[in-house]
């Protein structure tokens, strides 16, 4: 478990000295008196959200009017190793890819394992992340220990809907994640005009919009998917 109160000053100190010397730990490892190792694991919920299993087919309607079958063509777990600021990070990653045969379109879903933080009051927080990319548009959101999206502290990027209906099917507990990664506006109305992703823990991607004006909306036929 990482002690946030101790870890953050270490990061800032290392970053400060790195900025003075112009090099990071991997360039001049000998300047680090201590190298910290951090290992993150996928939470159980990150292995079940959306129930994406390799080979599963999900139907979507394209904004241009045609229907598409997306198949889960990839579902892999691997460890990503990175070094910076006198720390080594070993992150467990789950990558999923949904692809349609024709037109050839893909959606990439990536879960990054999380870290458990000890707050100053002694309680613990778990923060992991989810990244979904479609048509040159990426949605990034932090998740808590049960896979619920967490709003960025500095951006107005998340809404929760009790229900929403897509193509005649009602979905409960839907998260609306806005594409604000590069948005500078703090105006709520401006932010609500940005492309968005509708996402549920049960069904995964319900609707996804791109910056290029295209979108995909789930289209269930009442069959067992």
């Amino acid at each position: 478990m990482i002690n946030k109160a101790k870890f953050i000053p270490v990061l800032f100190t290392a970053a400060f000295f790195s900025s003075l010397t112009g090099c990071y730990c991997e360039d001049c490892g000998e300047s680090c008196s201590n190298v910290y190792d951090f290992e993150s694991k996928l939470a159980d919920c990150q292995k079940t959200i959306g129930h994406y299993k390799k080979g599963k087919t999900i139907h979507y309607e394209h904004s241009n009017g045609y229907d598409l079958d997306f198949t889960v063509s990839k579902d892999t777990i691997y460890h990503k190793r990175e070094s910076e600021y006198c720390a080594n990070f070993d992150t467990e990653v789950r990558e999923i890819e949904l692809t349609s045969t024709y037109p050839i379109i893909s959606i990439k879903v990536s879960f990054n394992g999380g870290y458990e933080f000890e707050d100053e009051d002694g309680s613990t927080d778990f923060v992991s992340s989810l990244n979904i990319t479609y048509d040159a548009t990426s949605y990034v959101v932090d998740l808590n220990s049960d896979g619920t999206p967490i709003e960025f502290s500095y951006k107005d990027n998340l809404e929760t809907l009790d229900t929403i209906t897509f193509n005649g099917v009602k979905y409960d507990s839907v998260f609306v994640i806005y594409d604000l990664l590069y948005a500078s506006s703090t105006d709520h109305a401006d932010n609500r005009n940005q492309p968005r992703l509708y996402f549920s823990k049960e069904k995964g991607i319900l609707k996804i919009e791109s910056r290029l004006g295209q979108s995909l909306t789930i289209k269930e036929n009442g069959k067992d998917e």
Partner: protein
Amino acid sequence: MNKFTKPLLFLFGGLLFSSCNHILDSIDDYVGGDFGKLVQKEQEWSDSAKFVDNLGIEDAFKERMYSHKPENMDFTATGTINEISVHVRIECNGTGGNLVVFNCKTVENPQHMNDEGIVFSNLSGNKMTTSDGYTIRMLDSLNIGKETFQNVLEFDATKAEKNECDYDKFYISATQGLLRIDLMDTITIKRSLP
């Protein structure tokens, strides 16, 4: 001739020889056979062209052409809806040059992507086939609707031992860019003409 003249002549002669040799090297570089027609015109442009398939689905391909005689040619076309990317590069050399088709033999692992490309070496004639069955051919012309395009490169993966491309065939004009893509045996995506 004094004692300095002879070494100076050798030095001058050596310099002349080495620079001539360099000039000869660059003169000798070429793109062999009919494939040379792809780099005849000096051009650099980027554009977006409309395409439609035989199902009626429309798409726009973003294209970029760089061609300088005799150095090389580099052409890319990427679909807006379809995640199809055609990338061809020609590099001249003293033995006819190489033509490389990228985005097919992409070896992916979690840390990085490595695109080996399909390489046609020592270009000559108007048709070449790799050992694993990919073929390129220069066509004098290709008709799209009522329009005829000259000097067209055809890439054909239909006879490949294992087709690793997203498409079966594509056609590129030396000056107009992407003309047509065939894929999945039944789908033809053609340039829309006004």
